């Protein structure tokens, strides 16, 4: 699992709003850095890394919520939550398939379930691809960076 990047400017006397800006900028860039790896079904770690990064982004958006303009923050946060959900749907069959492959020698009758999970994986991958395109058209990354800048400017 990829380690979280250090956030610049996390110092005791930094203002809450400056830290908010820095945190959202850093965590937003982290999420989109995984964009290229995430649709490769042979690399399940890409999905996992993007999902963890999205959770960390959501966490800083919630921690520092008071520092951002309410409407823009709400809209961006809703989309980050949506991204987290669609990544979760994609990740869940990976986790289950991994677990089942460990159990295959000890427990009988798993083949049908494994086949269903692979189909679910493929379907979730298509939905993830569609969601990522939608977020790109909607310029989610850019809006997160603008939101961060607004925290500093207020």
């Amino acid at each position: 699992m990829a380690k979280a990047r250090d956030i610049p400017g996390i110092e005791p006397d930094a203002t809450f709003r400056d830290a908010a800006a820095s945190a959202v900028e850093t965590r937003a860039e982290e999420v989109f850095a995984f964009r290229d790896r995430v649709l490769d079904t042979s690399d399940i770690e890409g999905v996992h890394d993007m999902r963890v990064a999205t959770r960390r982004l959501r966490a800083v958006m919630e921690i520092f919520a008071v520092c951002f303009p309410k409407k823009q923050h709400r809209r961006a946060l809703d989309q980050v939550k949506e991204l987290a959900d669609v990544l979760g749907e994609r990740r869940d069959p990976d986790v289950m398939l991994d677990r089942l492959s460990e159990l295959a020698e000890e427990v009988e009758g798993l083949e049908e379930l494994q086949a269903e999970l692979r189909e679910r994986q493929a379907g979730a991958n298509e939905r993830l691809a569609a969601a990522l395109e939608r977020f790109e058209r909607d310029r989610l990354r850019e809006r997160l960076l603008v939101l961060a800048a607004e925290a500093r400017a207020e």
Partner: protein
Amino acid sequence: MKARKVKGLDPDGPLVDNMRRVILVRLDELYGFEDKARDPANVEELHDMRIAAKRLRYLLELSGPLFGAEAKRSAKVVKSLQDVLGEIHDCDELLEVAHARGLDPLAAHTHGRRARLHESFTREWDSLEEDGFRDRLEAALRADVPREEK
């Protein structure tokens, strides 16, 4: 599980003071589950405790530069708790699937695994209590923070 609202946050106030407030609320949220989480049958509460642990862990990771070694150590402790709660949650998801499909051998195996994981969780929680985790973290949060001389 919706996070409790933290009162008194000031966007123009020092980061350290604001973060202290948030961490204390999230720490209290985590401990709010301690009694119910001891019963392995409380699936929802164990899931909610995992979410609470995750929120606290991300906060502590962020706060390392503010509250020093104890915050960093505490982040690792909470991560370990989150990990075992995560594995319990994975078992719960797999059990739901196994029961829905009548996969009795899978259900039996997963029940056994879940029971062992829950025992591991209660041992870990007891160890955390014996170590005075909450008191130590609260003391670190309330200690004077070394400021750089300007």
